[in-house]
């Protein structure tokens, strides 16, 4: 039943998931997308971005500066993604990754 206008709507059900954010040099874009999909991510959002960090140098002016890749996943998937990043990319590439708890509407879509 719909709530009458003006009154408080029914509370929306949310699920706690992990938001994994990876900021990396743009040359890695396709590889990182393949990596998170391989780990079990169902979707992702990618932004072109600029920034500065300890490495400073990028491999190509043509490929753009950095990309920021975000995905909403279950806790175990987030851990796998981080482990794979550490193993394959952290040593030689400019990569930053972090995980946050987020409350997500329709959370079952992402697991």
């Amino acid at each position, binding site marked *: 039943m719909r709530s009458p206008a003006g009154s408080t709507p029914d509370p929306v059900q949310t699920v706690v998931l992990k938001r994994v954010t990876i900021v990396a*040099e743009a*040359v890695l874009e396709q590889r990182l997308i393949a990596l998170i999909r391989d780990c079990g991510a169902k979707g992702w959002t990618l932004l*072109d971005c600029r920034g500065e960090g300890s490495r*400073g*140098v*990028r*491999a*190509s*002016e*043509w*490929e*753009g*500066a950095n990309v920021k890749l975000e995905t909403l996943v279950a806790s175990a998937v987030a851990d796998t993604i981080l482990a794979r990043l550490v193993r394959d990319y952290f*040593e*030689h*590439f400019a990569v930053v990754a972090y995980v946050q708890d987020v409350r997500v509407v329709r959370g079952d879509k992402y697991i």
Partner: protein
Amino acid sequence: METFELARLNLTSPMVLGFALGIVAALVKSDLKLPEALHAGLSVYLLLAIGIKGGVELGKAPLAEISAPLLVTLGIGLASPIWCYAALRGLGRFSAVDAAAIAAHYGSVSVVTFTACGTFLDAVGVAYEGFMSALVAFLEVPAIVVAIFLARRSTPSTTRWNETLREVVFGKSNLLLLGGVAIGALAGPAAEQVKPFFVDPFRGALTLFLIDMGVIAARRLGDLRTSGVRLVAFALGAPLVNGAIGAWAGELAGLSVGGTTVFATMVASASYIAAPVAVRIALPEANPALYLTSSLAVTFPFNLIVGIPIYHAIARWLHA
């Protein structure tokens, strides 16, 4: 025409002056910089235009005329990374991986330098073989592959060859160039239809692109302070040595004075579009500051400003 007069004509071309404007803009910390999408768009335009132009000429040229230049191009493409690598290891004392990464850049071609050489020759009224741009792709691919192979010979590890080859052969720069050559060769006289877009505005687009290249090159100048004297010496010496070898080989292959100049410039130039991406993926442990600074901040401006007239002078001397 005297060599100094040619050098002066080169320095006062709109392309080189545009490049200078970009350098000035970066030095005075101006906010001048082309939007990234425009830079990428202009790259696509320039590569395709060069490819189509070369393809049309390639379609007209008899096989006998191109077979010798093609063989020489492949030979230089395989050999130049080896002598660059040897010089970087022996004289430069660079690590095997860094030496190979830099050698990949100097073995392959800077398409913008190649194009600037063509517009220089047009401006001074010297004809050159139109199929030269088809040779660019043949110089580019073997050089990068040989250099990566050299690195992996001494430090066998993680190069993913499938990915690397795909990056080199099917990366957008090579694909656009080869695709353009195919379009030009297949279309033949029908390529006239796209001439108003791909030929007439070409130099204007190149000038715009070079303003941005000036900004990008000058921003890397700061890295020179940390890169060391040996790298700068290599970045200035390699184009002269490679250019002289290229001029000799071009003459040997039967190219005209103009064609020899273009070929010398191709061999003298260092890639900074295709090679960096391929090397970044194939040799991730190599230091990008070394190969980008040398090719982009030193060799590219050197070739653009003084190298091209020098290679032309060598070509004229060889043909005299």
